[in-house]
Structures are given as structure tokens and as C-alpha cells.
């Protein structure tokens, strides 16, 4: 079972949680300064250690990105398994992925290693625990670049210290509609968090999906960082629910209508752009949380959220050369079949 097939805690509003640790091996320059031979050496020894059976009970597979086509790499970005930089970068680089796709280790990204754990819903503690397990396993085999004063040494000083970036993806349509999203962004910015729209542009992100993550990796330890983020996410989720309830008290029919219309379009449309599909999936999601649409499951909506993205559509339908109209038709067909 893949991680996204499970419905997580606060799964209606919190889509997913992600934790990543930036790590480098001592005795090597950072990837930007690595010779091709050293790049290869690191890729080879880290990936074979993991795929030959680490002792954390996960089965790992390597995807060598130096020989992967742009569509497949783009699809991995849409699935949040690799970073956009990783997809566009050249050189010997790869990603090692666990069977359930929850653990990925990027090799030769900005740092030698980026350990990343994804989880469904709100699960910061579980993700950190899992990331620590993988980290300890690699620490037992390789020597990390670390100093007592600066912690884990990374290419960019903004990752020094814990090297930990924790982020939670939230669905915040009521914040967007009420305009409170900009207030949330500026106030969380002052508290040391970053709020970012996942899809689309401007403050009205398509489908109202946002990611909240910690800005600082220095001066507070891993658990403390996670605990602070937890508090912020919890209060954001509570406020989102309040705003939704307030709107529903006044406009119950309109709210119901919007959810059912979105459902109807997803179920019967013959052509869907990724922006339209993303936005409709958001409307349906809100309807599911409110209890209007009982037959739609949150894990299905989570999976569709990335499956409707352009490269995913190509990979899923097996045609890497589709133009955008063919893609819209294939996307609509895939969504229809899911509902």
C-alpha cells in the first residue's frame, strides 16, 4: 500500500506532511563542486548500501536520474518525490525510493543526501521518526560532515544546524475566499514560517492548496522545530474550520451546490485542464469534509491531486508525446473512471 492510499489525521484539511533532512558526507566537496568521478562514487555507494538492504525494514529501488527522460522526472516532481532542481540538474544523480513511496533519498541534489519522508494527513512526529531512522542507518555506514558549533554542514548556510525542513500541505479555501490568507502569510512569516501556494499563482492559488514550513534550521533542535510547526498548523486548521462553518451558516445551499457541481464536472467532463481539475478536486474535497458528498474518499482525492498534473497524465496513459488537448482528454477520462 502506498502512503497516499491511507487517510491520515485531519485528512480533510491537511493533505500531507513532509520532513526532509539535508546531509553531506565528510571528505567530499558539495555536489556543485564534485568531479564526475566523485559524483558517481557517492551515487554508487549510497544507493547500493540502501538497495542491498538497509536494516530499517524498507525495500528500496534506485532511479538513476542521469538516464531518466524529462517526462518521468517531471512526474516524480509532481509526486513530490524529487525537487524541481533535481529534475533539471545534470550529472550523476539519483533517487532511492521505498516501496510505499513514503521514503525517498535524493543523491547529489544540492547536498549529497536529502532524506525525505512523506505521510498522509497531519503526521509530523511519525515523519520525523522515520526520517531519523533512515538517517541513523546511513550514519552507521557513512561519516557525515558535521561540526559541534554549526551542526550538519550543508552547501547553503540556511540549512546548517539540523538540516531539517518540515512542511505540511493544507487545503485552505475559506482562508482564500475571506482574504485571510494574506494575513496568515504575513503573520506566519514573522514567526519564522513560510507559507506558499502549491499550484497556480498569486494569493488565489489554484484549488487553495498551501504549504507551511519552517524557515530556520539553526538554534532550535529537531523536536522543538516540529512542535512549533504543529502548533501553527493546528491553529490554522481550526481557523479554517471556523471560517467554513461561518460561511455555511449563511450560504448552505450555495456551498452544497458548488460541491455537487464540481463532482458532476469531474464525473462527466470530456476535457479537463490540470488547473480546472485541481480546482474542482478542491471544491469536492470541501464538500466531503462538510458531509455533502459521502461516497468520495479523501485518499482518492489526494492521489488525483498529483495524477492530474501534466507529466503524470503522460506517464499514466503511456503516451509521452501528447499535446495539451490530447492530455486534457486523457485526464478527463482518467478522472471519470476514478469517480
Amino acid at each position, binding site marked *: 500500500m502506498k502512503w497516499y492510499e491511507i487517510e491520515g489525521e485531519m485528512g480533510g484539511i491537511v493533505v500531507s506532511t513532509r520532513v*526532509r533532512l539535508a546531509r553531506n558526507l*565528510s571528505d*567530499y*566537496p*558539495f555536489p*556543485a*563542486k564534485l568531479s564526475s568521478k566523485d559524483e558517481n562514487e557517492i551515487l554508487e555507494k549510497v544507493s547500493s548500501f540502501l538497495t542491498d538492504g538497509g536494516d530499517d525494514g524498507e525495500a528500496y529501488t534506485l532511479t538513476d536520474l542521469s538516464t531518466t527522460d524529462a517526462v518521468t522526472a517531471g512526474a516524480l516532481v509532481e509526486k513530490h518525490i524529487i*525537487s*524541481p*532542481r533535481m529534475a*533539471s*540538474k*545534470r550529472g550523476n544523480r539519483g533517487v532511492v525510493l521505498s516501496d510505499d513511496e513514503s521514503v525517498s533519498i535524493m543523491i547529489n541534489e*544540492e547536498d549529497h543526501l536529502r532524506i525525505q519522508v512523506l505521510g498522509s494527513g497531519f503526521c509530523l512526529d511519525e515523519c520525523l521518526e522515520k526520517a*531519523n531512522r533512515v*538517517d*541513523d542507518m546511513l*550514519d*552507521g555506514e557513512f*561519516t*557525515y560532515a*558535521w*561540526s*559541534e*558549533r*554549526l*551542526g*550538519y*554542514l550543508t*552547501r*547553503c*548556510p*540556511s*540549512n*546548517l*544546524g*539540523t538540516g*531539517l*525542513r518540515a*512542511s505540511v500541505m493544507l487545503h485552505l479555501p475559506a482562508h482564500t475566499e475571506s482574504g485571510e*490568507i494574506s494575513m496568515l*502569510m*504575513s503573520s506566519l*512569516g514573522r514567526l519564522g514560517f*513560510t*507559507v*506558499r*501556494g502549491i499550484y*497556480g*499563482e*498569486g*494569493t488565489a*492559488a489554484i484549488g487553495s492548496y498551501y504549504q507551511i*514550513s519552517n*524557515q530556520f534550521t*539553526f*538554534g*532550535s*533542535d529537531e523536536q*522543538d522545530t516540529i512542535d512549533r510547526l504543529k502548533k501553527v498548523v493546528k491553529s490554522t486548521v481550526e481557523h479554517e474550520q471556523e471560517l467554513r462553518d461561518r460561511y455555511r451558516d449563511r450560504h448552505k445551499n450555495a456551498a452544497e451546490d458548488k460541491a455537487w457541481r464540481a463532482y458532476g464536472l469531474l464525473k462527466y467532463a470530456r476535457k479537463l485542464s490540470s488547473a480546472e481539475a485541481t480546482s474542482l478536486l478542491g471544491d469536492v474535497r470541501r464538500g466531503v469534509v462538510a458531509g455533502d458528498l459521502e461516497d468520495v474518499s479523501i485518499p482518492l482525492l489526494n492521489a488525483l491531486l498529483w495524477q492530474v498534473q501534466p507529466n503524470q497524465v503522460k506517464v499514466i496513459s503511456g503516451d509521452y508525446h501528447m499535446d495539451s488537448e490530447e492530455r486534457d482528454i486523457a485526464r478527463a477520462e482518467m478522472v471519470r473512471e476514478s469517480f
Partner: protein
Amino acid sequence: MICQKCGSRNAEVHYKTNFNGALCEFILCPDCAEKLEQDTYFGVNYYNKILNSFMSPRSYARTVRCPLCGTSEDEVLKTGKAGCPKCYETFEEIFIPFIKRINGSSRHTGKTPASAGKEIEEKQKLKELKTSLNKAVKDQDFEKAAELRDSIKELEGGNEA
């Protein structure tokens, strides 16, 4: 379409996002995309660009280069990044005040890797033994001092091996 940054090569990478409410859009060639190293993944790099403006050149000669990776001081000031772990020692005068200014602290709190953990533990033990040795000598407890001296020798010898 032509790359917005270099204005010469063909643009192949198009990225739109919003960061704390502001729209950011790039149309870049793969070369510039890589150079820009836009870690849009976690949205930290716009932030890094602002951070870089906090970095200031220091007093030593401009020709200083990192002995491990060859990164120059100019490069560190320009990119705001280290070329290798050793750069943090070589360019300590640039990095430490910068880290202090940004974080209000210049000491790591958090996880310690297993290998480093052992070293730190030994260092701490050595310090304690030396303090006890000084005390034993002062108290003229020579038997205890001899024992402590042996333990110190053993620990120091172990570190050299």
C-alpha cells in the same frame, strides 16, 4: 522563448509560484535554471537571496581559496554558499557573523551523528580526568594522580590511533 536571465539561450523551464503572497515567475534556460539554483521545492531560495545581502566582505586578502575544494572568497560572497564542509572553517569570518545575525545564535542545538558523538564524549571525559588530576596533585594524592594519568594517556593514545 529566450531565457529571461542570460537573454541568449532558449528557455525550457517555466516556473510560477507565490511566495508569502508575492507572485514569482521565471522563464529560464536549463543552464540559468541550474545557476539560479531555485530551490522552489521548499521555497527557501528567494529567502536565501535576501540572506545573501547580509553577507559582508572581510579583512583578509581576496585571494583566499578553500584548500579542499578551491572555492574563492569572491565566490562565497557572490553565491552565499559553501563549496565543501571545509569552507566553513576557511571562510569562518564570513559565515559565522552572518549565521549569528540571521539566527541570533551561532551554536547548533539538535542531533549529533554517532561518530561525532563519540568524539565529543571522549573530549568531555578527558576534560574531567584532567580536572581530577589537577585536584589530586594539589591534594598530594599521588597514587590517585598516577591512576588518572594512565587513564588520560590511554584515552589520548586511543584518539591518535
